[in-house]
């Protein structure tokens, strides 16, 4: 109690001071605009809409099912479903969002929209340099600004995107197989002159992302 404690503390600060010139552990500053901390794989900030192919207008995976709109906790998604169907990039006719707005000035980056979307259509972006003097003009994002390519998705969330692609491919294969089976069944049924129509829906619910391992 005679000053040793203070001396000890001063030694400690001195060690950090000297260390800051030699030891990167003790100079943790990352000079932001020039250097950036690499974004983590899972990092999330605001949602974006994934499109396949290279036409953002056509390739949007979103079918305007409005689940995310309903589940979004702060209700910052606004969707108007199209009246008509348009062929998507593989040519299948689908509804599409006539309007798809996200107010990022409200969004709480919670990723719930991503989790609930059954179509892997909405994903989280890592972009954060969005500060803007204009609140309404700058922060209300429409579907053109939201649309980002699948390649971009792969770039920012490599593992996750690969999984998603694999899953989609598997689903597609399954759906096709089912369709084929259905078609065969239909053919058989038609042969039996019965009426049967099935529109297969991609039912499995990919909500919780499966374990990585």
């Amino acid at each position, binding site marked *: 109690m005679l000053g040793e404690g203070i001396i000890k503390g001063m030694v*400690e600060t001195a060690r950090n001071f000297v260390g800051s010139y030699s030891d990167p552990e003790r100079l943790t500053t990352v000079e932001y605009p020039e250097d950036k901390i690499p974004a983590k*794989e*899972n990092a999330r900030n605001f949602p974006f809409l994934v499109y396949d192919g290279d036409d953002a207008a056509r390739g949007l995976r979103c079918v305007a099912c409005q689940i995310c709109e309903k589940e*979004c*906790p702060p209700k910052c998604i606004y969707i108007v479903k199209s009246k008509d169907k348009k062929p998507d990039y593989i040519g299948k006719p689908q509804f599409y969002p006539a309007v798809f707005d996200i107010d990022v000035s409200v969004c709480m980056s919670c990723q*719930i929209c991503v989790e609930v979307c059954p179509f892997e259509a909405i994903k989280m972006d890592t972009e954060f340099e969005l500060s803007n003097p204009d609140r309404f003009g700058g922060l209300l994002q429409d579907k053109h600004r939201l649309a980002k390519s699948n390649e971009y998705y792969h770039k920012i969330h490599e593992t996750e995107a690969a999984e998603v692609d694999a899953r989609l491919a598997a689903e597609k294969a399954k759906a096709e197989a089912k369709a084929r089976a259905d078609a065969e069944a239909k053919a058989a049924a038609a042969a039996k002159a019965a009426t049967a129509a099935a529109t297969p829906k991609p039912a499995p619910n990919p909500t919780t992302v499966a374990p*990585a391992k």
Partner: protein
Amino acid sequence: MFMETAIDTPESKYEILPKTLSNGEMDGELLEVAMGPQHPSTHGVFRMDVVLDGEKVVKLKPVFGYLHRNHEKIAENTTYLASMPYTDRLDYLCSMTNNWAYALSVEKLAGLQPPERAEYIRIITGELTRLVNHTCLVGFLLQDMGALGTPLMYAFREREMILDLFESLSGSRMMCNYMRFGGCRVDLPAGWLEQAKRAVDSYSGFLDEFEKLLTENEILVARTQGIGVLPPDLAVNASITGPMLRASGVNYDIRKVDKYGIYDRFEFRVPLGDHGDVYDRYMIRLLEMRESVKILNQALRDIPAGPIVDPKAKLRGFRPKVGEAYGRIEGPKGELGFYLISDGTPNPYRYRVRPPSLINLTVLEDMCLGQDVADVVIILGSVDIVLGEVDR
């Protein structure tokens, strides 16, 4: 004659100390000072109306509500799942434990059982959160004592390491929104465990450094010992929980009492203080961090492989049966509980958070009376409040 002017509420709970001296003389006037809502050391928008006699506090009224964000009301108007990200914002330093407490309560209500691996992940993230919280607290406490940021900077240096872990796990630094009813949202990414081990290993070193920097510092000791004493009987009666309770010497740790999760599998001790003053609260937190490191080492060693969600859990269309449940965990700040009433709809009928920060403030005035103004800020700092939780 000055009594009326200085003290406003006639029905105030505490008897005001006799200001008039025995022989009818008076010395000095009472000075009413508002500390907050914008104040450098109230840790956010907290306000204390302090009545000072010179430098001594003769009355102190906490004023809340400057961050009342209607969390409970919003939660009652939305689904069970959508409340999960809101719990992050309760005690915004410890989103993981908030998630956990909420998930635990809903699991009680709906009868879900998270699988083993999920339990381990919860313990790991929960204890990491405890480290973050206690580290920041100690940093802030020292900041309040006027240590110009150095301890806080060191604390945040370590916090960043853990936040990196959280970010690579959940995607967000602070608002993890990671746990789900019956498990966790995603599995650990590759290499996470190793990174976590490294962080935990270096933590003891950091704690040593921290203690060297401060624990023996004469100024810290002089400022904290014997200040803000909280007797154990009052602590229990006022429902104080967490490190603050244990600093008063009461052995009550929900991790030991309820053995929720799988805490009974881990070996750790509960540090207890004898004096119940600010210094004890500071030390108890340092010691708890060391215990947390122990738990983390065990958990990181033993974590099994397996699924991370209860297969019974549903994400969409989740409707628990009619009934109610109260679940609680030992959060870094004390008992964090969620009380839920379900009426069978997708939204909870009643959603209630038991905020340890708020309840721990019950005794703030008792601890501050007769102390100096300068002590008030460190007493408040040692209570460890986060306004998001106090006001919700």
